[in-house]
């Protein structure tokens, strides 16, 4: 399964994550600043 890309709109940090296996919605948390203002970047 391909990784999903995210960008934190608080600190600007970009990162990738494996999609949730159960497709459950969870808090998006920036690993750098812990903000939830994390945008999923469409490829």
């Amino acid at each position: 399964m391909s990784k999903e890309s995210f960008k934190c709109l608080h600190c600007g940090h970009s990162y990738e994550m494996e999609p949730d296996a159960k497709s459950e919605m969870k808090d998006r948390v920036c690993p750098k600043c812990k903000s939830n203002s994390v945008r999923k970047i469409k490829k």
Partner: protein
Amino acid sequence: MEETSNRVGVFVCDCGMNIAGSVDCEAVKEMASTVPGVVVAMRNKYTCSDPGQEEIKRCIREHNLDRVVVASCSPRMHETTFRNCINKAGMNPYLLEMANIREHCSWVHLHDKKAATEKAIDIVKAAVAKARLLQPIEETKIPVTNAALVIGGGVAGIQAALDLADSGHKVYLVERQPSIGGIMAQLDKTFPTMDCSICVLGPKMMDAGKHPNIELIAFSEISKVSGYIGNYTVVINKKARYVNELDCNSCGKCAEVCPVIVPDEFQQGFSSRKAAFIPFPQAVPPAYVIDMKNCLGNNPVRCNKCVEVCEKKCIDLNMADKEIEIKVGAIIVCTGMDVYDPTVLDEYGYTRFENVITTMEFERLICGGGPTEGQILRPTDRKVPKHIGFIQCVGSRTANRGNPYCSNVCCMNTIKDSLLIKEHYPDTEIYVFYMDIRAYGKGFEDLYKRSQEEGVHYIRGFPGEVTEDPVSHNIKVRVENTTTCQVEEYELDLLVLSVGLHQDSGLKKLCNLLNISLTSDGFLMEAHPKLKPVDAPTPGIFFAGSVEAPKDIKDSVTQASAAVSRSSIILNADFIKGDGVKAFVDQEKCTSCGVCARVCPYNAIYVDIKAKNGAKIIVAACAGCGACSAECRFDAISIHHFMEEQILSQISSALATNPQNKIITFLCNWCSYAASDVAGISRMQYPANNRFIRVMCSARVTERFIWHAFKLGAPLVLLSGCHIGDCHYITANHSTQRRADRLWDAMEKLGIRPERLQLEWVSAAEGPRFAQIMRELEKMRHTVTREEIEFAQRVLNARDNAA
């Protein structure tokens, strides 16, 4: 557009010096009197007091007011007080709006009176703007199911069930274990009276098991909860016991023939039991249970001895779990707590030295019904120890490897244990290593003194080193005695770790099912910590005992009776008034598209897409989150008290002056607004540039609100709600996340930096995080240029004109 009021009264509260200390209340009052629509503005020392409320009523009569704004504390504190007040003066209670100038202003801007006063003025203006558009709401009458569910059969749950049942209510008492009794059933004696624990509890357990109004559902867990105050439907998963508990007469023959021997959990592993077992002699229901994990009957080669020996034929190894559905009007949660596992604290040697045990293990050793029949025998050589030490606060009051809070009962439990040892073996030397002894309750200090008089040594300091003599297996302890300032060494035969208490392992799952929250320490959150200490924020749900915080038996029982008293208010009524904040449909605008029904977490909207006869709200099921309203593209569905025009008017008012300096923040009532209150109560300081708008759920915030704020020149908007998974409205905040994603995409397309819309999930316990977010947003605000703000205004206005 709703009818606009021109007869608003504004009442500005000093709250002693709580508000007046950092806000110029006179200036706020003077400004309020000039706001369009306001006919009278008053200032009170304490508006919530009787004279303060009388003044509101007098002004309603004398000035013929039709809307009231009270500028004081959080609406979570006194909204009901003032709604009742204006209702007594003949007004509909929903014609009140509160301006929170205490938790949101005076307490968080203590050192900047000018900024605090400016903010208080904005808050009051926004409240007046909304108040002018408020509409009277008729509250719904909801019938009540006269039955209660008590979850957890420890001492608190048993007391709650008995009190409710004695009051004539039907009670379902659900216990996860095969028997009720909880941790109290495992204790030897109780402090401060030194009663035999099971002698006190046993009769109550029997009463609960036999009461005609109590249906005991043991060995069961809650699997689904739906409904609302007065009308909950609960699905219970009753685990297979493999023994028909109604027929079993506890003869014990099944256990006699059972060949499987496993450690006995009730005796803390100090003795063994069979796979066919009864948890303890006084168990209720008094029936055996088959431990199917270890039973050979579950293997390909069936043992079947217990089945063959049971004369009453009540063993069924093919028994399956079953689901039971019940309907109740109120729920009391009494699931208690777990005891801290000191395995991680290896410096005390719990995993390495057999003669280091926990207080729960000690309870079983000293108990007459325990594995040694009340003799204290140390594990390595089964000799009576002559020197026993206790280390206090194991897993408590530590930020690193345990819990930061005091577990409340450990000091007194150790004092009790020390006296029990002295009673059994007067010559034993006892050493208690402690930080400070907390003996605060009735009779506690006397017990502490008695233990000192009996010769128990209290040494102020925690051991820095615990080692074992490899030959004698004695435990050697080095400790800095902070009273004598000496490093001292003790050789002990037995060391007891006085372990703390923490959240029950199943509590998080239960919270999700019941839609209730936890505080940062992992225990249940109250609707109000002082005024509603046994109410959960979700109406109709109450709690008692250590599920709320660690407490002793007396406090647990007291709280259980308090929870019963609170729940009886619901159960004794034929009908209760439902909150007026409900969705309603404008049938002329509704296209029956069904989007509202899809996003409703409560299935409270019915739409027949084929018939196209408009969405229908099931009012009793609607919880008032507003997700439907925010998702409707045709403005056909709205929420009473949080209507589109009302919230738009708040935004417009807040941004009427110097919008470029202000951050519009939408807060959900249950989590992020509660967190903002906690920040205020804790006097956490942050910049005064935020303007808060309360909604019941973050899902109520439509895209239009965000665009409106940007059009009026707001540099930043924050959307804040409960964490995903903790939403008060089950999954409503999923809509918030999806909407934020859509907004960020749209902003980018329009050339507006998506960063200008921030999203933060803040739980009610995260006051410090809320304050930190406010400080960080203020830094972000400075990065938004005037050109950016003006560009966004031009683009959005052009888009509207084109539409």
